[in-house]
C-alpha cells in the first residue's frame, strides 16, 4: 500500500469528482443527445484534453505557453502518418520521402509512436524553453508554433499542408474520448499534488526561495513540459481518430486562443478550473453562435450579428484578467467546494 499524502488523497477525491462529472455529461449525451450534440460534446472533450495538457505546464510552472496546438498537431500528424492505410497514402502522399507511404500500423501502435515522437520533440525543445524567463519562454513557444506550422504547410509531401490529410481510420467515439479525458484529469491532478508538482508551484510563486531550498526548477519545468506535450499529443490523436481528416489549419492561432481562453476563464492553477473553463466556453460559444445568425427568439427577430462569438471569447479573456486573473476557480480544486477544510 502506497502511503499518500493529505494533498494526494484530496487530489484523488477531486479527480474522482471531476471524473464523475465527465462521465455524467458523456453518458447523458450518449443516451439523450442527438448525433449533432454527440459531435459537439466530442470536440469539447478533445479541447478539454488540450486544456489539461496546457494546464500541466502553464498551471504549475506559470509560464504562458502558446505552442500547445503545435504539439497537438505533431501528435495528430504522427499518428495519422502511421495509421493511414497504404493504399490511401499512395493516393494522398505520392511523393512521401523515407518510405512513409509504404507502411501502416494498427491504431494503438500508431498512437504510441505518435506520443513518443511528440515527447522526444518536446523534450529537446524543452531543454531550451525551461531555462528562459517567463516572457522570453512565451516568445519561444510562439516561435515554435510558427515554425511547426510552417513545416506542416511547407512539407506538403508529408503533411499535405493546407490540403486535407484524409483516410485516417475513424476508430474513436465519444466513449473513448470520455475515458481518455478522465485519464488525463487523473494524471494532471496527481501531478499537481505530487512532490514535483508542489515544488514546481512553489517555485513559480517564489523562484529564488524555491531554488534556495534545493528545488531543481529546470528539471521540474521540463517534466511538466513533456508531460503536457504527451497529453497534447493524445488530444491530437483523439482529434484525428474521430474526424478522419486533418490539416495544418486547426493547429494554429485560432485554436491556441480558444483553448487558452478556456484555461484562463476556469483558472489555470487548478485542474477543476481547466474542466470548468472548457465546458463553459465550449457550450457558451454554441449559444452565442446560435444568436449570431439572427434567430427568432421569443417572437423577436434578432438581427444578424456575425462576430458575436469572437467578441464574447475576447471579452471573456479581458474580463477574467481584469476581474479575476486567477480564473473562476482561483486556487481551489473541486473537492474544496464539498469537503470541509480539515487541514
Amino acid at each position, binding site marked *: 500500500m502506497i502511503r499518500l499524502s493529505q494533498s494526494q488523497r484530496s487530489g484523488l477525491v477531486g479527480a474522482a469528482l471531476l471524473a464523475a462529472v465527465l462521465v455524467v455529461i458523456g453518458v447523458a449525451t450518449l443516451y439523450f443527445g442527438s448525433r449533432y450534440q454527440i459531435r459537439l460534446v466530442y470536440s469539447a472533450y478533445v479541447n478539454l484534453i488540450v486544456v489539461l495538457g496546457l494546464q500541466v505546464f502553464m498551471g504549475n510552472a506559470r509560464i504562458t505557453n502558446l505552442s500547445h496546438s503545435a504539439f497537438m498537431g505533431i501528435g495528430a500528424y504522427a499518428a495519422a502518418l502511421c495509421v493511414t492505410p497504404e493504399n490511401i497514402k499512395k493516393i494522398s502522399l505520392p511523393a512521401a520521402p523515407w518510405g512513409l507511404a509504404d507502411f501502416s500500423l494498427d491504431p494503438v501502435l500508431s498512437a504510441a509512436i505518435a506520443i513518443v515522437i511528440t515527447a522526444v520533440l518536446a523534450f529537446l525543445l524543452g531543454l531550451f524553453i525551461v531555462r528562459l524567463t517567463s*516572457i522570453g519562454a512565451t516568445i519561444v513557444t510562439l516561435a515554435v508554433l510558427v515554425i511547426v506550422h*510552417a513545416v506542416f504547410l511547407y512539407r506538403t509531401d508529408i503533411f499535405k499542408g493546407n490540403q486535407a490529410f484524409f483516410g485516417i481510420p475513424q476508430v474513436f467515439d465519444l466513449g473513448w474520448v470520455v475515458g481518455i479525458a478522465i485519464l488525463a484529469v487523473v494524471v494532471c491532478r496527481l501531478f499537481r499534488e505530487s512532490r514535483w508538482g508542489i515544488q514546481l508551484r512553489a517555485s513559480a510563486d517564489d523562484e529564488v526561495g524555491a531554488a534556495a531550498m534545493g528545488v531543481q526548477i529546470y528539471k521540474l519545468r521540463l517534466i511538466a513540459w513533456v508531460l503536457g506535450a504527451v497529453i497534447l499529443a493524445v488530444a491530437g490523436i483523439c482529434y484525428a481518430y474521430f474526424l478522419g481528416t486533418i490539416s495544418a489549419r486547426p493547429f494554429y492561432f485560432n485554436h491556441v486562443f480558444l483553448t487558452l*481562453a478556456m484555461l484562463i476563464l476556469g483558472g489555470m492553477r487548478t485542474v477543476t478550473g481547466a474542466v470548468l473553463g472548457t465546458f463553459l466556453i465550449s457550450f457558451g460559444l454554441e449559444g452565442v453562435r446560435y444568436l449570431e445568425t439572427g434567430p427568432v427568439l421569443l417572437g423577436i427577430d434578432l438581427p444578424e450579428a456575425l*462576430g458575436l462569438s*469572437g467578441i464574447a471569447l*475576447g471579452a471573456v479573456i*479581458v474580463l477574467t*484578467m*481584469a476581474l479575476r*486573473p486567477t480564473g473562476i476557480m482561483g486556487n481551489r480544486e473541486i473537492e474544496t467546494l464539498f469537503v470541509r477544510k480539515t487541514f
Partner: protein
Amino acid sequence: MEYVIQQGLNALSFGAEYALLALGLAIVFSIMGLVNFAHGEIIAVGGYTMVAFAALAIGNPVIVMAGAVIAAMLASLTLERVAFRPVRKADPTTGLLTAFGVSIVLQNVFLMFVSPRPIAVTSLYFLDWPIEIAGIRLASLQVFETLTTIVVIVALMLFLRRTVLGLAVRAASLDFEMVRLTGIKANRVFAMAFLISGLLAGLACIFIMARRGSVDPHLGFDPVLKAFVACVVGGFGSLPGAVLGGFLLGAVEVAMLVMLPQSLGGMTDAFVFMIVALILIWRPDGILSPAIEKGDKL
C-alpha cells in the same frame, strides 16, 4: 552590385516599418511590462477611419492622414483606460493575455460592424511613385517610411531626453513607483506612453494603407507579430533595442526571401522565427535588454 544595393535598401525599408511598430510596442512594454498585441488593431482603427473618410467623400489627404493618426491615438488611449488599467500592476502574462483578448474583440467588432472582406482605400496611393537614383529604383513610399522612422526616432529621443514627461517615461521603465514619488501623476505617464504608441501605430497605418490600399479586420496582426519579434530580439522594453531589432528583422527577412533556395521558399517564416528563438536562447532578455535593478517595492 546594384542588385545588392537594391536588396539592401529593401531591407532598410522593411526594417524601418518593423522599427516603427516595434517602438510602439516597446514604449508601452517599458513602462508597464505589457506586450500590447492589440497594437495591430489600433492600426486597423486608423485604416477604418480612412474608410469612413472615403464614405464621407472627404478626400483631402492631409485630413485623411491626420484623421487616421488621431483616431489611432484616441483608440490607444481608450484601450489604456478600458482594458489595460485594471491589469496595470499585473504580471506580464496577465497583460499579454488581456491584450490578446482585446485584439480578438476588436477584430470581431470590425467584422461585425464593417465587413470580413477587404475594403479598398485608395486615397493614399498618391504617396507612392517610383524614384530612380543611379540605376537603383526605389518607391517613394520606402523613402518616406524610412525617413519617417528616422524622424520619429529623433523626435522620440528629444522627447524622452528634454521633457519632464519624457524623463518620467524613461524613469518609469526602471522604477514606476519612484516616479510617482516625485509627484508625477501615474495616469499621465501611462496616457503619454499609450498616446505615443498610438501615434506610432497611426504613422505605420499610413504607410501600410498606402501600400496595401485596403483594410480588413486582420490588417495589423501579421505586422505586429513581426514587430513583437523585433522588440523581443532587440531587448524587452528597450527603445534602442526595438529599433535595432526592427532593422535586424528586416535584414533577416529580406535575406531569407532572397537567399533561401526556391525549394525552401515556404520556410521563410520558419527560419525567421528560428533565428529569433536562437537569439533568445543566446541572450534570454534580448540583445539590448535594459538593466533591471528595481528598488525594493512594497
